[in-house]
């Protein structure tokens, strides 16, 4: 067969694959679009949208601070507090599990694999579902939200910590072992100094996610600004919805900026 024929054949094969892919995609979208139960848009959609937009342009500034009772500042502070206390809990949990899951710290692969399994189990549990369960245990409120975030973030933090440990330089640990340092000393003076910047960076990254999560926890009754927001939505007070979202966007943006500036300095 000449080279030209071969080229032609290869091209035809490639085209065939592409056509197959396209047909598959089209079938997938037909399945998706026609499977969605479309009940039509409710008639109030227009006016409600208009009201929401009006709520954003003329937000309820009086809600920002009120001396007694709940207001925006208290809600946002509570959200921040949930995120902070939650991340602290997950650091405490993630460090031991992360070290357990790191390949280069355990002698046999079963140990690290089991640690990884635990981490990926917790990573697939959504924060919101955890919050629903913790509400049943400690009652509705910010504490349930904090526990949910603490447990939920452990999966991701532990994975990031383990990856950080796996990427470190084995030299220092070996030299400490060579001069007779025990396991704990190897960990404290060989491993930790190397991985701490990475740990801090991963923790800050997760903290940014925690802020967003903490804001939604209130929607299901686990404390924070979400509670005020869902009440405002149900009560159709769109000017209040407007100010809550503005406040939330501002706080999350500030946290993001601070965190990314810190992360840049560390790494």
């Amino acid at each position, binding site marked *: 067969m000449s080279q030209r024929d071969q080229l032609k054949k290869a091209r035809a094969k490639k085209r065939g694959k592409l056509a197959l892919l396209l047909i598959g995609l089209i079938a997938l979208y037909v399945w998706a679009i026609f*499977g969605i139960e479309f009940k039509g848009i409710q008639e109030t959609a227009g006016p409600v949208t208009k009201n929401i937009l009006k709520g954003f342009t003329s937000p309820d500034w009086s809600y920002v601070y009120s001396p007694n009772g709940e207001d925006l500042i208290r809600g946002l502070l509570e959200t921040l507090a949930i995120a*902070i206390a939650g991340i602290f809990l997950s650091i405490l949990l993630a460090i031991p599990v992360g070290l357990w899951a790191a390949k280069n710290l355990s002698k046999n692969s079963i140990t690290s694999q089991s640690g990884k399994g635990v981490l990926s189990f917790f990573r697939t549990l959504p924060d919101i579902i955890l919050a629903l*369960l913790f509400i049943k245990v400690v009652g509705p409120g910010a504490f349930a939200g904090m526990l949910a975030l603490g447990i939920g973030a452990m999966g991701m933090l532990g994975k990031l910590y383990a990856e950080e440990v796996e990427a470190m330089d084995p030299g220092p640990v070996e030299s400490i072992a060579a001069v007779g340092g025990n396991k704990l000393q190897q960990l404290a003076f060989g491993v930790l100094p190397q991985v701490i910047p990475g740990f801090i960076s991963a923790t800050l990254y997760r903290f940014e996610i925690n802020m967003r999560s903490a804001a*939604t926890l209130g929607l299901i009754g686990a404390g924070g600004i979400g509670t005020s927001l869902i009440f405002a939505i149900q009560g159709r007070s769109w000017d209040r919805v407007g100010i809550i979202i503005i406040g939330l966007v501002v706080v999350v943006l500030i946290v993001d900026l601070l965190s990314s500036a810190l992360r840049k300095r560390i790494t």
Partner: protein
Amino acid sequence: MMDTKLNGPLPAKPARWPFYFFLIGLFTIVLLSAVYIGANPLTFIQNSDNMIELIVSMFPPAWSYIATTTPAMLETIRMALLGTTIGMIFSIPIMFLCARNIFRLRWLTELSRIGLNVLRTIPDLLLAAIFAAILGFSPLAGIVALSIFSIGIIAKLSFEAIENIDNGPLESMAAVGANKLQWIAFGVVPQILPHFVSYVLYTFEINIRAAAILGLVGAGGIGIYYDRALGFFAYDQVLALILYTLVVVITIDLISLKIREKLL
């Protein structure tokens, strides 16, 4: 002569107190936060039999519930698929506007970036709650919420990829007189397409997880069944739902990961 002499005294160790000060400050903030939200470990310990009871009542999982909820699970997948697709379409113009090496108008890229950053601060569930209020309690609300949420992720990751492309092809095209559209279509797109598809798939993975809980605020999908099962204290059904979601999420992750590995 083998003995060495130290040249003068050792350099002074850096002071430790700023570090300790920092640590104390950090712990104070954590402690204050914990007190502010009333996080009392005692409450947790006192209610630990609640916890054990909850876990015990989860077993055995109600496997039959999986059959009941399958239509809702399929709806969840549909929502994620359509939400990701619509988000992908809208993120295409936005990512070109945000990339500094496409339009050399400083104010335009900066403005687009600020808009994108603001968009990215709003959590998915919150968007769903608002769109459920506008569009009614239907999967449509979830799809719209996921679309907007996807724009934030896809556009952000993609414009960073665009900024990292090789400038060579672009310069040679500009040299032979290509216009802006040709320049983007034949210079930029071939370079970023694999990255873009990979980011879309990654977003799809995130959206499957998100779509599974949107039902809690009335935006369609399997989430509504979580609400129902928890309301009836049917924890065996809750566990069945969790495991079902887990299997679907992991399966889709695996498929998506396989395709992404092939792409890059």
